[in-house]
């Protein structure tokens, strides 16, 4: 049993090493980084972070990312809920085909869609808005949310619905008051995955924005190329992108394992 615990420990160490390096780099001065190798920051500096928090092009990148990711999570889960309910409770014309078609959209390489997406969203006048990115990310998040929620709802016995109707609940009231609380773990897991895939995606987000809604990750690539080799600044910006993800996982930590097992994910 002793030897066994070493495996997760080594794995977590392996996961943490590059992250440690990024964080350590963010506290170093550019001079120290380019000057040579040092395991810990020798002249500890917060200057890199100061630049990010005082320059609007930097901190607006974060705000933009958070806005479109939140919008996308809300839209995806909201429209996926009734659809997943329909898939888990009813048979209807073309249900299997529709479900499969939804899943195929997760298989489409984002690179394929980049250019047509740009043209589509430009032509409807949504280019460079938060809602454009939020809607575009629906392409792969809605299928995933429907899939996860359908798994969870399938685990809820149909008798629950029937009892509620006998007790005189209307459908919307039943859905909101009884059904949603029953599958709240599923909603949490679905929201987590939507947040995750929207937060980490960059190709579409970058293609659909220019100034007003530019995500932080795109700000990073632009700065990296224009300002030369400012590794410290890049590392600080990278470190800050890890934080929202860490907060979100912390909230769903109890659902991750349980949620996975309950739903079919």
């Amino acid at each position, binding site marked *: 049993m002793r030897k066994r615990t070493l*495996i*997760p420990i080594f*794995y*977590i160490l*392996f*996961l943490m*090493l*590059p992250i440690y390096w*990024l964080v350590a*780099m963010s506290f170093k001065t550019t001079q120290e980084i*380019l000057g*040579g*190798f040092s395991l810990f920051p020798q002249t500890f500096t917060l200057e890199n972070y100061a630049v990010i928090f005082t320059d609007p092009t930097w901190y607006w990148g974060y705000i933009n990312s958070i806005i479109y990711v939140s919008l996308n999570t809300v*839209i995806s889960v909201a*429209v996926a809920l009734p*659809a997943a309910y329909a*898939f888990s*409770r*009813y*048979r*209807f014309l073309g*249900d299997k085909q529709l479900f499969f078609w*939804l899943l195929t*959209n*997760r*298989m489409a*390489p*984002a*690179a*394929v869609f980049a*250019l*047509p997406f740009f*043209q*589509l969203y430009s032509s409807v006048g949504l280019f460079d808005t938060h809602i454009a990115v939020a*809607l575009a990310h*629906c392409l792969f998040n*809605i299928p995933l949310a429907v899939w996860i929620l359908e798994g969870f709802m399938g685990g809820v016995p149909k008798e629950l619905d029937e009892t509620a109707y006998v007790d005189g609940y209307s459908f919307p009231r039943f859905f909101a008051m009884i059904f949603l609380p029953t599958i709240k773990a599923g909603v949490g897991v679905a929201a987590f995955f939507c947040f995750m895939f929207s*937060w*980490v*995606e*960059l*190709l579409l987000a970058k293609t659909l924005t220019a100034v007003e809604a530019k995500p*932080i990750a795109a700000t*990073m*690539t632009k700065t*990296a190329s224009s300002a030369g080799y400012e590794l410290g600044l890049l590392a600080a910006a990278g470190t800050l992108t*890890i934080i*929202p*993800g*860490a907060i*979100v*996982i912390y909230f769903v*930590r*109890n659902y*991750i*394992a349980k*949620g*996975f*097992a309950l739903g079919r*994910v």
Partner: protein
Amino acid sequence: MKTENQRAWFFVLPVMLLVAFNALVPIMTVVNYSVQETFGNNVFFWQGLDWFEQILRSDRFHAALGRQFMFTFLILIIEVPLGIIIALSMPRKGFWVPVCLVTMALPMLIPWNVVGAMWNIFTLPDIGLLGYLMNHTLGIEYDMTQDPFAAWVTIITMDVWHWTSLVVLLSYAGLVSIPDAYYQAAKIDGASPWKVFRYIQLPKMKTVLTIAILLRFMDSFNIYTEPFVLTGGGPGNSTTLLSIDLVKIALGQFDLGPAAAMSLIYFAITLLVSWLFYTLMTKDDAK
């Protein structure tokens, strides 16, 4: 038992409309480009299936496709067994469970270009932690901007770092759903650890593993940002995977016709292989 109800369509309508808006219009645009030639100014000429033929016959496409299959194959045979082993050796209850889950899920929540940038910083020959250790402490020459082999090892390691946790989390979810009674029964029968794994744990993990393998296949086959930021497809073309090549043709050379034809072929291959995987892995369930 599900009941027949055509009004259920109203429930799926919002999803349908949103996804159709995002999927059908762009894919039709791609189809449109794939059969036409343009010299700019929005003037198009009918080209038929020439682009498809050209792409299917081109050595460049074959090479990129070969590299893509190689990459996906390598990461699958590393990540899936490794993920299962880690999930098996994780604690089942107590304080360390959430700690493991949170730290393991962390790499998956880092934006993909940050992952690329992070590994770039990590592997710089003289100032990166890994690069320094390899070159100066261990004395192994390591520079992924020069050596294709080093570049391959690096992108594979990066993907293992990034995504093994997905397999771990899914397998772990399958494992914790096994009731204790199963293990007690196995103990009474005197089953070896291998037998417990083969006849109790593996069957219980089958559904989640199917999902893990499918997701890993789809995502690794479509991978773009991380290797692009890390190696830019180089040195030479050694790590130019399919989507990197596609973007080079579409946006670098602005050859919209060939790029669109390539997109459709690419999409068709992904669909076909996913479908094959899916039918093979769920074959037993249908019986």
